[in-house]
């Protein structure tokens, strides 16, 4: 019996197609909700060289959807535990675990060893990093992302097609949903979306069917609605990355999902002693916060006005939505100013809270 007889029986695949799978090199980033089904089907299909990047360890709450792991895997590194499971599933293929974070420093050399990159990560910073590194190394990316009951799938940078930035340019000023937070997710949803990603990978290797390039597929698990949206290539977005490629490896990520808590509520902030409130909005922005003493330093001027910060105090930063103050905290942390927090609430909510409790300082 041949392990792949059901593949070989398909005229679209045959032994020639199976050999293509055996010779393919696929790098999967993230061995979580999306990564598990992706890896499971790629390994079972006989993709000959699979790389797995994940720095994270397995927790009990992962088992609801991360189907490669069991109770005995809790506490183990995800890339290594996935490799162990997959090697049992298929011992005829080569699997490499990279139990580390993907960074600007390691991504280019890593991507060069693979034909296809698969994005199964859970945060925007890494998604943009994957996109940019793939543009520089000229590799296609099979993208998948989920939110509660909905999922998105696309193939970027495929045969000079559009990239993730052509779809969503990095809008740091706007609030982005589901970012690293513990948002709920229906366990089977990453199974569906991850399987769609595995399907795109296999079709690309086998050169059959149509590839989901230049299109974003959105799936809703609650009402089985599927929408396909056409994406156009933005040369401007792609050239921005290519023009800065010489500096790519010197960049750092401003944010990490596993960083200690830097976001707090206004209530928690007021409980702290010896605090300095810093408003990082532009001076013209409303509402003004009264009742408390505030130092105003707009985010764009922060690095030029560090002397205004009383670093012997706990710095409490806020802005209009909580997004800029979060960025400001990352900037300060990079400058080794660590005793700082960003308020989660919007400025109007902060104002209301202070009024409600009749706060005076």
């Amino acid at each position, binding site marked *: 019996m041949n392990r792949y007889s059901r593949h070989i029986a398909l005229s679209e695949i045959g032994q020639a197609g199976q050999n293509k799978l055996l010779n393919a090199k696929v790098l999967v980033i*993230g061995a*979580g*909700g*999306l*990564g598990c089904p992706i890896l499971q089907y790629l390994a079972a299909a006989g993709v000959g060289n699979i790389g797995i990047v994940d720095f994270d360890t397995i927790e009990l709450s992962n088992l609801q959807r991360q189907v490669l792991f069991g109770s005995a895997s809790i506490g183990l590194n995800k890339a290594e535990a996935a490799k162990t499971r997959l090697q049992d599933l298929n011992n005829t293929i080569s699997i490499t675990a990279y139990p580390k974070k993907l960074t600007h420093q390691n991504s280019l050399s890593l991507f060069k060893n693979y034909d296809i990159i698969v*994005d*199964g*990560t*859970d*945060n*925007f910073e890494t*998604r943009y990093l994957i996109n940019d590194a793939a543009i520089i190394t000229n590799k296609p990316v099979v993208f*998948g*992302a*989920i*939110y*509660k009951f*909905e*999922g*998105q799938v696309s193939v970027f940078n495929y045969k000079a097609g559009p990239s993730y930035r052509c*779809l*969503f340019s990095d*809008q740091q000023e*706007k*609030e*982005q*949903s*589901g*970012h*690293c937070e513990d*948002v709920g*997710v229906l366990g089977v949803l*990453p199974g569906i979306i991850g399987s769609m990603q595995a399907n795109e990978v296999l079709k690309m290797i086998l050169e059959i069917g149509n590839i989901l390039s230049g299109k*974003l597929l*959105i799936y*809703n698990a609650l*009402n089985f*609605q599927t*929408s*396909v*949206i*056409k*994406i*156009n290539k933005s040369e401007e977005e792609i050239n921005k990355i290519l023009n800065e490629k010489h500096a790519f490896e010197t960049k750092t990520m401003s944010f990490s999902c596993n960083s200690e808590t830097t976001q707090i509520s206004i209530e928690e902030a007021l409980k702290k002693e010896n605090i300095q409130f810093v408003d990082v909005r532009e001076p013209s922005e409303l509402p003004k916060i009264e009742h408390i003493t505030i130092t105003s330093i707009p985010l764009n001027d922060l690095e030029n006005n560090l002397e205004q910060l009383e670093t012997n105090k706990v710095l409490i930063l806020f802005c*209009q*939505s909580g*997004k800029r103050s979060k960025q400001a905290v990352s900037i300060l942390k990079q400058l080794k100013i660590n005793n700082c927090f960003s308020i989660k609430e919007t400025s109007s909510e902060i104002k209301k809270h202070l009024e409600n409790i009749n706060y005076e300082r």
Partner: protein
Amino acid sequence: MTINVKYFGLIAEITACEKETILFTKSNVSEFLELLYKKYPNLENKDFQVAQNQELVTQDALITGNELALLPPFAGG
């Protein structure tokens, strides 16, 4: 004209519906969004893209079709 608008992810949570019909008398996407922000002020600081008749469009695009969709990026995996 009447426009059928579809919402996804967090956007649909803010509008509390996945689709609706909106009466619109001006001409381009950014004017349409202004109208929408009046109805849903919480949309204004959210990150999303707009598609018209299943194709991504920029804010200055003229409204020619009768279907718009607001697509936020998803981070989860």
